[in-house]
């Protein structure tokens, strides 16, 4: 009598042995969602989605959707930089976008992504903060940049950075006049070129993120949420429009060789160029 063999439907197998299920695909050079190992998901960018914000944008990378709004407020400058405004980026990952996030204070992931984006914006000198000065020592513009994830399907860093850059490009701030301790902003119902100004961005860094799998020694581009959960580490590479690197991060997983990093940089160059074309088209 033949011994009964265990057979699973693919979905059951995926739930019981997610890593093994995934490996069966990657050894053939594809992933469960049909993409090749180095393919990025379809991306769309929409500008000016929030009419009440000074600048806004929405970016979709596959299933991950991030909406970013920029609000400009007047504040007193920091004591050690009296002629500079400041940028306050924040990435929000709430239960609204995925059940893996719990309500309450920002999770470690949200804080780490916010900090990573803050460093890219600050260290690659995207914006000259002196441009945000209204009256030295008295009043400056502070830009609250809030990137809210409305649907989470992995790769929040790329989506959030793209949304933030698109929103900053979209910002219009009314020209202020400073008079004896008060700020007057020009009236009129619509912001036009005469009564408002846009931000002069020195560069637009955009990024490409890859997931590292130790057991199969593969590096996949643009992981979705299932791939992210079973991955061992991540590589993120940010570049500006001139091809200069603005940030490289490799975190988690075993040691990664230089040649693998070089391949990622090449792939990131192509991807960021593609992203730029998408951003400039719409």
């Amino acid at each position, binding site marked *: 009598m033949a011994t009964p063999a265990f057979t699973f439907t693919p979905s059951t197998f995926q739930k019981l042995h997610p890593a093994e299920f995934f490996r069966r695909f990657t050894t053939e050079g594809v992933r469960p969602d049909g993409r090749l190992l180095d393919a990025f998901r379809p991306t769309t960018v929409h500008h000016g989605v929030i009419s009440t914000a000074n600048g806004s944008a929405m970016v979709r990378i596959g299933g991950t959707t991030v909406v970013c709004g920029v609000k400009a407020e007047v504040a007193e400058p920091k004591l050690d930089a009296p002629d500079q405004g400041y940028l306050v980026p924040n990435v929000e990952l709430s239960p609204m976008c995925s059940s893996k996030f719990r309500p309450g204070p920002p999770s470690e992931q949200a804080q780490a992504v916010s900090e990573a984006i803050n460093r890219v914006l600050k260290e690659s000198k995207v914006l000259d903060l002196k441009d945000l000065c209204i009256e030295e020592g008295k009043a400056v513009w502070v830009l609250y940049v809030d990137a809210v994830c409305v649907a989470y399907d992995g790769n929040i860093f790329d989506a959030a950075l793209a949304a933030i850059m698109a929103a900053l490009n979209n910002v219009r701030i009314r020209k202020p006049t400073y008079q004896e301790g008060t700020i007057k902003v020009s009236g009129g119902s619509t912001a036009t070129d005469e009564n408002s100004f846009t931000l002069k961005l020195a560069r637009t860094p955009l990024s490409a993120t890859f997931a590292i799998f130790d057991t199969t020694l593969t590096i996949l581009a643009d992981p979705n949420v299932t791939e992210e959960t079973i991955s061992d580490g991540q590589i993120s590479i940010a570049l500006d429009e001139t091809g200069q690197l603005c940030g490289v991060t490799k975190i988690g997983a075993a*040691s990664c060789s230089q040649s693998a990093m070089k391949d990622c940089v090449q792939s990131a160059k192509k991807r960021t160029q593609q992203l730029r074309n998408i951003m400039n088209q719409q």
Partner: protein
Amino acid sequence: MSRLDRTRTSAHQLRPFFSSQNLLNRADGSAQFDFVVGPAEVKLRDEKLDKATLEVVVRPLVGLPGIKDKAREQAIRETLEPLVLSGLHPRTGIQIVVQTMKDDGSILATAFNATILALLDAGIPLKSILGAVTCIVDSETNQILLDPTSQELANAKSTHTFVFDNKSSITSNTESKDQEDAVEVATLYSDSTGLFSEEEYFKCAQICYKAVQAVHGFIRTAVQKKLEKEQQQIHS
């Protein structure tokens, strides 16, 4: 430039601290207190059935922990996960607390180095040790400076922190006369910010890799000295 170097480290809270001379030729004012508790009991919701749960807490010099510290926590934890033989202690927790005592640049690299010494001291089984070093590309001279102070960091065009383990082999091209190009390095953790070219990035990786060999040597010597001292105390 040859100045004396001191990296003060400390391990498990009941052990005495020790300070050692560092082999890197830079004045490094960063010192750090780091303690490890584990393997110990872990909250049910954090319990992993087949591995130990690693928890890292980073406390800054002043003030409450902020997002920078959370980012460092994630960096240290994610880097240590593949190194700690957590399968040997399932359903337990290993807590690592990193407290900054003095901040004079290269904080993350110092945190990594202190953490690995603390783990060694606590006797947590590890696959390999790691060594970390930070370097910058100076904005004026375009020189690559290792282990920058806070002042040097302020003048940096780009800042790079690398962590290497002591297992990845060096495949050197013996035909090449220029030793600088010979090493193929494998990075455990890499974090670079600022504006830099691909060549600068890989050159920094090479330079940091060579510097990290000194860090590995220092860790070995530090552990040896500590064991010798303990042996003396037992036998005296």
